[in-house]
Structures are given as structure tokens and as C-alpha cells.
């Protein structure tokens, strides 16, 4: 009896999680395949995109890693590059410290698989009390990683054989983040932190350029949130 109940809880969470991941399925399959094709035409076997997407599981770094694999061996530079590109994940962890409490053996995997998209869904999804939160987040993470890895492997196998007009499909990720931003905006009483986030990022993008604006952006966001902490807390400008 106990067995069936826990199985039901897991199945229920999986069924509830799937629809949340559909936009990511579209985006990750497209981007994953693009990545696999890119590795294929760069002369790597499909095993490379398969294993790299499985272990690194972070889109932008994987694209950069292709270039690094084709350059002379420079381990320290690789590590610094990886830390800089992925630094934004520090923010996700800080935001999920409470959410991941009590998720037991699933916790290491939830942290391992926390890419931009998975974090955004797990943070913002409205999960009813009847659904187990830990299992919900587990399936969101697992499905998203499955989409990414299978897309990358498929792209690596098919290589440049596929050509269909998918120009612009990558906008699906932008659209998803716009919707999540909007949902957050409609939900919060005070928009101070949202305005800080978007304004600081846009200004840093203009000042520092597309390739190196993320670290200054993160530093400036932290600075603003720290300096204005009292008024932000007072206004309740937090979800």
C-alpha cells in the first residue's frame, strides 16, 4: 500500500512537471541540435556533444568549450573562463537555498542540473499542495537535461545532413524568460528589484559589450541590492 502511494506521488509530480517543460523541449532540442551539429562540423564524434552536454550541462559554456578544444591546451584559462561564464549560477543557488531544503537524496541532482531554464521554472512554478515539490523539481530538472542531451547527441549524429528553415526558433528561450519576468512583475507589490535587474543589465551590456557584461552586471546588482536593502525590505519589493 505504502509502495503504491509513493509511486503515485512520483507519477503525479511527473505528470504535473511535463507541461511546464514543453517550451524548454522546443528550445533545448533546437539549441542542443545546433550545438551537436557545430561539434560535428568541427570534427568531433557525437560522443563529445553527448558526454559534454551530460556533464557540463550549461549551454553557453559548451559552445565556448568547442573553441577551447580546438585551441592549444590552456587549463588555467579554461577554468577561469568556465567560472566567469557560469558565475550567474551563484545567484540561483542563493535563491534556492530554502526551496531545496528537505528534498533528500534528490538535492545533489537538483543542484547539479540547475541551468538557467530549470532554475526559472523551479523558482516560479505555482505548485499546488497536492503535488510533491521535491519530485516536481526533480522531473523538471531531469526532463530538461534529457531534452538537451538528446538534442546534442542527435545533432552530433546527423551533423550537417539536416537543413530545415528553423531560423528564429531560438527566440523560444527569450519568450520564456520574458513571460517569467512578466509573471514575477504581476505578482510583486514593488518593482524595485526587477527594475534594478533589467536596467543594470542593459546599461552594462551597452558599456561592456555582449561578451563581457555579465560579471559587471552581477556585481552592480549586488551593490544596488545591498545599498538599497533598507528601502527594498520596507517596500516589500520581493516575491
Amino acid at each position: 500500500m505504502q509502495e503504491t502511494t509513493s509511486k503515485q506521488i512520483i507519477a503525479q509530480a511527473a505528470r504535473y512537471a511535463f507541461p511546464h517543460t514543453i517550451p524548454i523541449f522546443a528550445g533545448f532540442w533546437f539549441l542542443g541540435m545546433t550545438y551537436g551539429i557545430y561539434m560535428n562540423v568541427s570534427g568531433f564524434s557525437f560522443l563529445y556533444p553527448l558526454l559534454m552536454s551530460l556533464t557540463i550541462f550549461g549551454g553557453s559554456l559548451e559552445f565556448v568549450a568547442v573553441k577551447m578544444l580546438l585551441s592549444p591546451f590552456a587549463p588555467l584559462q579554461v577554468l577561469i573562463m568556465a567560472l566567469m561564464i557560469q558565475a550567474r549560477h551563484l545567484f540561483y543557488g542563493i535563491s534556492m537555498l530554502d526551496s531545496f531544503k528537505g528534498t533528500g537524496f534528490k538535492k545533489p541532482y537538483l543542484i547539479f542540473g540547475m541551468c538557467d531554464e530549470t532554475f526559472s521554472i523551479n523558482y516560479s512554478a505555482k505548485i499546488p499542495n497536492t503535488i510533491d515539490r521535491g519530485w516536481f523539481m526533480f522531473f523538471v530538472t531531469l526532463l530538461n537535461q534529457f531534452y538537451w542531451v538528446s538534442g546534442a547527441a542527435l545533432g552530433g549524429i546527423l551533423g550537417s545532413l539536416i537543413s530545415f528553415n528553423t531560423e528564429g526558433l531560438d527566440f523560444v528561450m527569450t519568450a520564456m524568460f520574458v513571460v517569467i519576468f512578466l509573471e514575477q512583475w504581476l505578482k510583486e507589490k514593488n518593482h524595485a528589484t526587477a527594475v534594478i535587474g533589467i536596467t543594470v543589465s542593459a546599461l552594462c551590456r551597452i558599456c561592456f559589450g555582449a561578451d563581457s557584461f555579465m560579471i559587471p552586471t552581477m556585481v552592480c546588482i549586488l551593490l544596488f541590492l545591498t545599498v538599497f536593502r533598507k528601502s527594498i525590505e520596507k517596500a516589500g519589493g520581493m516575491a
Partner: protein
Amino acid sequence: MTLTQQIITIALCVLGTMTTRFLPFLLFSSKKPTPKYIQYLGKALPAAIFGMLVVYCLKNVSILSGNHGLPELLAVLAVIWLHLWKRQMLLSIAGGTVCYMLLVQFIF
């Protein structure tokens, strides 16, 4: 690069990524109470992060050249309009994406 050097390169990418994902959880264990400042950041950051991610997705758009970011602007407006109208996440995302694909494939 030899195979060993390739493996080391990939392993360092994994190490860098996992450091950024695991560090907050290692620094603030669930056994000890999280410092008030970090708790505050945990609540104040997400809205700022989502704003940052929108800009991050649009980072390669050039306002001064090419299409001046017009297809992106129109598609983002379509997403916002659809979402405020129907409040259906999947519809807003799919509608905005189709709109963008039509714009870049046929108009711009």
C-alpha cells in the same frame, strides 16, 4: 590537443560549472541558520535575475545596425500582449516565437 588534454579541458569546464552551482549550498548548510543578508538576497535576487536573463537572451541584438532590434522588439511586445490578454504561458511563448520566426524569415 591529445585525448588526455581534451578530457582535462572538459573536466575543468565541469568543475567550473559545478563550483558555481554548488558553492552557495556548501557555504550555507541547511543545518545552520542562513545569515540574514543572504536570506534577503535570496528573496530580492530572483526578480533582478529574470530581468538579467531577458537582457542576456537579447545580448547579441544590435540597436545601431542591421534591423536595429526591430524583430526582437516586436516579438517581445507580442509575447507581453498575448500574456496580459490570455495569461497562458505556453500560448504566449509559442505565439511570440512564431511571430519572431515569421518576422525574420519573411519580413526582415
